């Protein structure tokens, strides 16, 4: 509890610095701990996200005609993103020895 108090005191003094340092730490941790295979999948995910955002911004700027094409393009990016995440889940559970990464995984079969 006291540790938290210290951190919140540190927070009050320099909040933005702390946020940036957290992000930096996250980035470092990510770079070191994830395997090459997962990094390739992550790069693919970022690319798909980028494509989806571009489509959405274009639609917002230019208008929704024809709605069919916008929907099909956008949903295909969303779908590919989701399927790639499922692939990543499978890969990471194979590569790691223990189910550390699987969040809130309930080991008993339901």
């Amino acid at each position, binding site marked *: 509890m006291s540790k938290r108090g210290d951190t919140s005191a540190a927070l009050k003094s320099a909040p933005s610095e702390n946020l940036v340092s957290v992000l930096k730490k*996250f980035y470092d941790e990510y770079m070191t701990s994830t395997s090459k295979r997962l990094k390739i999948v992550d790069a693919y995910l970022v690319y798909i996200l980028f494509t989806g955002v571009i489509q959405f911004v274009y639609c917002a700027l230019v208008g929704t005609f024809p709605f069919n094409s916008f929907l099909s393009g956008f949903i295909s990016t969303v779908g590919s993103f989701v*399927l790639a995440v*499922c692939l990543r889940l499978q890969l990471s559970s194979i590569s790691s020895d223990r189910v550390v*990464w699987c969040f809130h995984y309930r080991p008993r079969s*339901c």
Partner: protein
Amino acid sequence: MLVLSIAAILSFSTRLFSVLRFESVIHEFDPYFNYRTTRYLTEEGFYSFHNWFDDRAWYPLGRIIGGTIYPGLMVTSAVFYHALWFFNITIDIRNVCVFLAPMFSSFTTLVTYWFTKELKDAGAGLVAAAMIAIVPGYISRSVAGSYDNEGIAIFCMLLTYALWIKSVKTGSLFWSCLCALAYFYMVSSWGGYVFLINLIPLHVLALMLTGRFSHRIYVAYSAVYCIGTILSMQISFVGFQPVQSSEHMAALGVFGLCQMHAFIDYVRSKLSVEQFNILFRSIVLMGAVVSLSVAAIGTATGKISPWTGRFYSLLDPSYAKNNIPIIASVSEHQPTTWSSFYFDLQMLTIMFPAGLYFCFNRLTDANIFIIMYGVTSIYFAGVMVRLMLVLAPVMCILSGIGVSSTLNTYMKNLDVSRKDKKTSKKNVDHTYPFKNEVATGVVFLVTAFLITYTFHCTWVTSEAYSSPSIVLSARAGDGGRIIFDDFREAYYWLRHNTPEDAKVMSWWDYGYQITAMANRTILVDNNTWNNTHISRVGQAMASTEDKAYEIMRELDVNYVLVIFGGLTGYSSDDINKFLWMVRIGGSTDRGAHIKEADYYTPQGEFRIDKEGSPTLLNCLMYKMCYYRFGEVYTEGGKPTGYDRVRNAEIGNKNFDLDVLEEAYTTEHWLVRIYKVKDLDNRGA
């Protein structure tokens, strides 16, 4: 396996009462439309069916059939028809349609078994399958001849739910994709798919709130949502609704929440607690601001359409009664009474809470789903009688779980034979004495319940739910059976004795039957999509002959058809529906002169005898129903013109018709057809 196949065969055979008593004929009103479209599909092919614009209904507006129906039922029948004909088993399309619903009820029995097996175990599955084979709530919409969307929709719904539970339990993409395909089948078959697309996200939300979210749920829901949404938009009737209407927004919201939850959990696994908290707080703040503003802008600019009337009335039951008389007038949309619950479900109403208790006892991801399904179905079944159908399967499943768990608990205590006494001593609990006797008593009690359930269901099916509505029967004084086949008599008279392009005006109930059997153009039918047009017909029926003649000339009407039950005592005739015609007729601008109060006596009663209001006694509907009725003796000891439904002698007896002439009256005066006279040759 034997028990299951017996249950499947039983579910098929118990729906055949009306075929055995009358003939293999399509029942009621809506099934006739489905039958006509299926016939069109088998004759013309899928492309012309999909692009069909029907100019024989809703004259002069027409109806885009391809874009306003759920094609699942028709396509299923057409597939069966073509498959049978491929093997040279030449069954007529009418018989395929009549027997489709019972066949799908057998499939439903099998799917229920599998579903309950996933939830609990095979024993509960068998009990649930046996129960759903005969439950009256489901039989009412799936007898042989009731060729309606619900016949296959319940099968699709249970299949989708079973595959959803399987994908939640395994977390594999394979089952999730199968679930999405089943969801597509469900969307193609019934408008009630909105229930599914809201229940599944609610389930995911409940799992998140109880801390049971895991990567299995993530995989299952994301795959089902993405693939399911794309597939559901392939049905023209659904169109772009999944991304635009409020009814689907919950699914989208939960999808976004899923992604965020998964991402947050991933980040949490990388960072320490304090750092994570900082990041979390800033993200949550940003996310909440963004999503709230997007939702506000979307609703304000109208991009996200509000709830439609039909579904809004489920949340606020008084909405339809006050604002939309058409929805309120359908008897299936009324709130359910207690007696309906018992009539349709009998013992299940008692075993349902027991099943809920056993589910709460052993909370798993799948059990949470069935609990939510049960509770929401109970609410919706209480709001609208028609939705009793959605409640029946979950009642069977939960009761199956309840019965099977009860029997399991007590059968452990049964003392079977002396030899096993040593081993059974371990399982027996020593909490109360006379375990053997109590256990035997409970087993007998449950068996007695199940037997009475069977008798009740069979009786209900035979008495209440097996009438085809288009053919009536009654007992004559000497005990013989009289068949009233007046409806088909009148429709076939129309078919053979009127010109091809004749237009028939009747109340919207009979529209589908007229187009399917008489093959003539009609003004309004059961689709009720255009309230103004129906209101115009209502104005014509409720006005005097001259005013009505103006409306009929405007709409090019050649023949008028009314249903009259006064001679036979048939109580669902047009005079009993007349007040609804008045209400709907007076609900639009051009009908403002029609006020409901004018048709009542000064004391506020609706009477057709001498005391009745003069507006009522001179309106078109009255004259058409009672023309020449004043000369007929209907019951011994009563004067002529005695109406056997309203139990009164009619007030306005000997009158002539100015603008109509009688074309045909059926044998028992049930259907009366009038021809609209042309204008005079010389101006008056």
